[in-house]
């Protein structure tokens, strides 16, 4: 074998190593459906609470969405744990638990009379989780979602209740529904492009 052919084979090995490292790390994209699911859940909870003035609309919907998320992951089988996957999962789980405790406590403590507090805090927390995840994955599209959430948080802090609600609904649409569908399309495309490594 000539030197250039040998070099080509060695370079191919290095490329294979890089490709497999990327492949092994690829976890978050398979969570695209969770963005969509939670986006729908937020809409359900929002309109349920607005129309029926039902105090338990948010807790009930969030618990139902959490159960559906767990069911979805259970159906996916048992993907291997990676440090990155654990970090991303931990970020979202911690955010979810924090929101659940904070808003239930504020609500039952009677301090959520001004809905803008809820919209601002929820948007800021969602922005934080999206930003943390985007930095871990170096994913600009998700960082853009974080910026949308932070913008919604600022609007909720300074604007009227109606403006806060509109900003919150728009952020859900962009960062949960549209971003979720985008992530699912990316995931599907990558699955179909996936190469093979034969002995």
């Amino acid at each position, binding site marked *: 074998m000539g030197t250039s052919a040998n*070099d080509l084979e*060695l*370079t191919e*090995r*290095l490329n*294979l*190593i*890089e490709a*497999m*490292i990327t*492949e*092994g*790390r690829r976890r978050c994209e398979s969570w695209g459906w969770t963005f969509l699911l939670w986006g729908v859940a937020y809409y359900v909870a929002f309109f349920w609470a607005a129309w029926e003035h039902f105090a338990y609309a948010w807790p009930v919907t969030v618990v139902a969405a959490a159960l559906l998320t767990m069911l979805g992951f259970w159906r996916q*089988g*048992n*993907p*291997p*744990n*990676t*440090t*990155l996957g654990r970090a991303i999962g931990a970020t979202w789980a911690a955010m979810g638990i924090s929101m659940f405790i904070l808003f239930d406590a504020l609500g039952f403590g009677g301090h959520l009379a001004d809905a803008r507090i809820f919209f601002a805090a929820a948007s800021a927390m969602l922005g934080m989780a999206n930003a943390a995840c985007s930095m871990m994955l170096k994913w600009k599209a998700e960082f853009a979602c974080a910026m949308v959430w932070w913008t919604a948080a600022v609007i909720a802090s300074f604007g009227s209740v109606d403006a806060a609600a509109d900003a919150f609904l728009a952020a859900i649409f962009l960062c949960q529904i549209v971003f979720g569908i985008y992530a699912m399309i990316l995931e599907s495309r990558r699955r179909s492009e*996936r*190469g*093979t*490594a*034969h*002995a």
Partner: protein
Amino acid sequence: MPELPDLNPVVHGKLRLALLTLLTGVDEAEFTWLREKTGATDGNLGAQLMKLEEAGYVSVEKKFVKRKPQTLYRMTDAGRAALTEYVRALKQLLGEAVI
């Protein structure tokens, strides 16, 4: 001129190299996950994993989960060291730092 290093033939196999690299990033991996990631056939994948196991580079655990058999593979310290040494040798042979 420094002597060029030899590449470990066990690690050098394309599928074995892919498997070792995949296993570096996870705590443990199921056979089906490795098959999905590499696109290899069951027979080829099983044969290459056996070679890695014989070399002491991966360890295998077989168990039943919800009454279904599950085969889990983990990279050993020897496997990690072998892959690290392989990458170092590869970079030296190519004369550049790629990773």
